[in-house]
C-alpha cells in the first residue's frame, strides 16, 4: 500500500497549492541555484567574469545534454549507465572515420547514428528481451567502452579542423555567450516540451509509476522505452562529437565515469529513482547548481577530494532535507491537534 506515508495531504485551497508548488523540490533547487550563482559572483574572485561563464557552460555541456534523455528514462523507472561508454565509442569512431578521410560534415551525423545504434541495442535488450536495465547497461557500459578501445586502440586523433573545434569552445561574436549555449537551450526546450506538454511525456510518468496500468491504458510501454534509449544513445553520440571537438582529441577513454555524474545530477534535480516523479527544470537546476558550486569552490582552491564530499553531501541532503522538514511539520501538526482536543476536553 503506497498510501501508508501519505499523511501529509496538502490543504485544499489555493494558497496551499501555491505553497506546495513553491516548496516542491524543483523550485527549491532552482532558487538554490540562483542563490549560489549570486553569492558566488560577489564573494568569489573571478567567478562572475564572462570567461568563467564560458568555462562553466563548457563544463556542464556534456552532463546537461545527456541528462535530458536520462531524465525521461529515469522517469519511466529505468536507467542507462552506458551513456558515457557510448560517448567514448562515438569519440573513437569519430577519430577513426576522420583518419579514413571522411569529411567532418558527414562524420558528425554518422556519429549521432552510431550513438543511436548503441541505444537500439540497449533498447532491444531491455524492451525486446525484458532484461533489467540496470544490469543490461552495466554490461553495455563495459561493451561499448571495450569497442571504443578496439576501434582506436591506445591512439588519439587530434587534428580536427579548427573552425569546428573553435566553434565548440568559442562564443557568439566573441561576446559572453558561448556557442554551445544555443545548442543546450534548443535541446532543453525540445526535451522540456516533449516531457511536460505532450501525450508522450504524460505516458512516461504513467509508465514509471505503474507500467501495467499504462499498458492497460493503451500506452505502448515497450516501444516508448525503446525510443527513449535510442534518444539517449543519439544524444550521447552528439555529446561524443562535442567532447571530441572541445578537447580536439578523439580517444577511447573520453568521458569515462560520466554516467555517475549524470545520474547524480538527475537525482539532485528531484527525479525519483523509482520512476514516475520529477521535472526537467529541476534537473537543469541540479546540473547548474552542481557545476557552479564546483567551479566556485575550485576557484577558492578547495581540493578535488573535498569537492567529492560536497557533491556527495549535496546529493544526500537534496532528498533528505525535504523529507525531514515534512516529517517535522507532520509531527508538529499532530501535536497541535492533540493539544487542541485536550484543551477542548477540559
Amino acid at each position, binding site marked *: 500500500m*503506497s498510501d501508508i506515508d501519505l499523511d501529509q495531504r496538502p490543504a485544499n485551497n489555493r494558497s496551499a497549492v501555491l505553497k506546495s508548488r513553491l516548496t516542491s523540490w524543483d523550485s527549491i533547487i532552482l532558487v538554490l541555484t540562483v542563490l549560489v550563482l549570486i553569492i558566488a559572483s560577489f564573494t568569489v574572485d573571478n567567478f562572475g567574469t564572462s570567461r568563467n561563464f564560458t568555462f562553466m557552460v563548457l563544463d556542464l555541456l556534456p552532463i546537461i545534454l545527456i541528462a535530458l534523455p536520462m531524465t525521461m528514462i529515469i522517469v519511466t523507472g529505468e536507467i542507462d549507465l552506458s551513456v558515457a561508454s557510448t560517448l567514448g565509442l562515438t569519440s573513437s569512431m569519430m577519430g577513426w572515420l576522420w583518419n579514413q578521410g571522411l569529411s567532418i560534415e558527414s562524420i558528425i551525423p554518422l556519429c549521432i547514428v552510431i550513438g543511436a545504434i548503441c541505444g537500439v541495442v540497449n533498447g532491444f535488450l531491455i524492451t525486446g528481451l525484458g532484461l533489467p536495465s540496470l544490469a543490461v547497461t552495466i554490461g553495455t557500459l563495459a561493451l561499448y567502452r571495450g569497442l571504443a578501445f578496439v576501434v582506436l586502440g591506445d591512439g588519439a586523433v587530434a587534428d580536427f579542423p579548427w573552425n569546428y573545434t573553435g566553434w565548440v569552445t568559442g562564443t557568439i561574436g566573441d561576446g559572453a555567450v558561448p556557442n554551445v549555449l544555443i545548442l543546450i537551450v534548443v535541446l532543453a526546450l525540445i526535451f522540456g516540451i516533449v516531457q511536460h506538454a505532450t501525450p508522450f511525456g504524460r*505516458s512516461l510518468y504513467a509508465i514509471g509509476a505503474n507500467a501495467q496500468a499504462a499498458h492497460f491504458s493503451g500506452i505502448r510501454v515497450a516501444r516508448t522505452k525503446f525510443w527513449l534509449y535510442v534518444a539517449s544513445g543519439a544524444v550521447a553520440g552528439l555529446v561524443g562529437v562535442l567532447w571530441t571537438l572541445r578537447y580536439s582529441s578523439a580517444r577511447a577513454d573520453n568521458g569515462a565515469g560520466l554516467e555517475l555524474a549524470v545520474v547524480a545530477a538527475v537525482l539532485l534535480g528531484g527525479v525519483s529513482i523509482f520512476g514516475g516523479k520529477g521535472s526537467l527544470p529541476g534537473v537543469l537546476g541540479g546540473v547548474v547548481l552542481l557545476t557552479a558550486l564546483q567551479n566556485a569552490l575550485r576557484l577558492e582552491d578547495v581540493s578535488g577530494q573535498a569537492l567529492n564530499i560536497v557533491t556527495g553531501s549535496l546529493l544526500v541532503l537534496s532528498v533528505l532535507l525535504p523529507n525531514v522538514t515534512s516529517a517535522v511539520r507532520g509531527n508538529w501538526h*499532530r501535536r497541535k491537534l492533540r493539544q487542541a*482536543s485536550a484543551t477542548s476536553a477540559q
Partner: protein
Amino acid sequence: MAEANARPRLEVHDVTKSFGAVAAVQGVSFPLYPGEAHALVGENGAGKSTIVKMLAGVHRPDTGTLRVDGADVDFAGPADAKAAGIAVIYQEPTLFPDLSVAENIAIGNQPLTRLRQIDRKEMTANAERLFRRLGVPLDPSRPARGLSIADQQLVEIAKALSAEARVLIMDEPTAALSAVEVERLFAVVRSLRDEGAAIMFISHRFEEITALCERVTIMRDGKHVATELVADLSVDDMIRRMVGRDLSALFPKQDVEPGEVVLEVDGLSREGVFKDISFSVRAGEIVALAGLVGAGRSEVMQAVFGVDPYDSGTVKVHGRRLKGGSPRAAMAAGMALVPEDRRQQGLVMELSIERNVTLPRARKLARLGLLFGGTEREAAETWTRKLQTKLGRLTDAVGTLSGGNQQKVVLAKWLATGPKLLIVDEPTRGIDVGTKAEVHRLMSSLAADGLAVVMVSSELPEVLGMADRILVLREGRIAAQLTRAEATEESVMYAAMGQEVSV
C-alpha cells in the same frame, strides 16, 4: 452471541483521523465483543478502511484512543497491533510475490526447528491445513506472483487465520470472491467466532452482513451514525441511515432492442488459460460473463482487448478483424476495458485524478500535439462529477481516494473515451450500494443508447439483474449460454460448477 454487558475485546473510543484537510474519521466509537461478528458499513469514502488501518497500527489516530481489553493502547506500527492479537485482512491484498504461498502465510511466525531455523515441512503442512479448511486448491509451494485477485484474497484469509488472532478484522474480503468461496469463508469465520474471537467485517453486500454478523456500526462521511444489533434493523434501514436518503430500485435494467453485431469473438484460445471461446455482442446488449473465480473470464476479455496475447482465433469489431495484442488498436476500434484490479491495472496511484482520467485520451485532447492542463481538467471534472466521485482536488494523487472512489475514477477514465464497446470486469467491486445502483443505471442507459457492454462479474444478483445474455465459463471454456429468461441462480451455478448445487 456475546452478552451485551461483556467486556469488549477491542474498543474504538472517539477517534479522529484527518489527512490534510480531509477529515476521514471524526469521533467514532464502537466496541468489538469476543464471540461476536461486527459489521462496519458505510458509503465509499465513509472512513471504514481508515478505521481498519488505525486498528492495524498503520495510522495513528489524531485524537481518541483504542482500547484492548479495557486498557488504552498506542500502536507504533503494525507489529504492535499484531502483538496485541489483532489480525487484519486489508482491502487490497498485500502478498509477497516472490515468496511461496506457504511462506506468505507463515511470515512473521514461521515454525522453527531446534536450531532456530525455519521448519519448511511444518510450514507447508500448515498452509495445506488452512487451504483444506478453506477448500482452496492452491499449491503452497508455488510463488504468490501470478495468483488471481481472488486467490490472493484467499491467501490473505489463510494468513489471517494462521495468526490465531483474538481479533480478526476483514476489510471487504469477499469483494473478489464468488458465492462458493464466500460460503466457505463464512463457515470458517463462524467457527472462529464460536471459539471466542472478535470479528470485524466490512462489506458492501448486505446479504453477507445479515448472514454473518450480529452487530453493525453504520458510518456516514467519517461520522458515527449508529451501532445496533443486526436483528433489529432491516436492510433498507441500514441503507437509509448509511446514505441518508431512500434508494430507488437497485437494478433498473431497461429493455433494449439489440442492434447490429459489434463484437465477434471466434475460436479464441490461449494455451493453458482458455480454449475455443466464441461469442458475439450486439449494440445495446449487455452480455455477462459468469463463472467461478479462476475460470478465466478476465483473461478472455483481456485477450479480446489486446492487453494479453492469444494463440489462435479471431476478434472482430464491426465486422473488421482486430489486430491481436494491441490495446491501442482495440481502443481505436472503439473498445474500452475497465479492468478487475484497479490498483495494478486500472490506475496509476501516484498520478493525479485528472491525469488518470485522461490517460487513454491524452492524444485526442492535445492541440498541435501539445497538452495544456485546461482541457484535461475539464474532461476529468465532467466525468468524476457524473459518477459522483468523492474527492478533494482533481490534482490530488488518485491513491489518496477510498477504494470505491478509485473504482469510480477507473470507470470515468474509460467512459470518457466514448466507447462503442465497453468491457467491464467486476465493475462494482468495492462500490457502495448507492453508487452501485448509479453504475448500473449508467450502464443500462449507455446500452440503451446503443453501447455494447460485456460485463464480467462474480456477483450473481448483478449478473442476473443486468445481463441480456449470460455466458458461463468453466475452466477456460464456455460451459453454457443462457438468455435472460433462462438464467436463474441455480442454472448459472450449475453451469459454472458442472454439477448440481444448492446455493
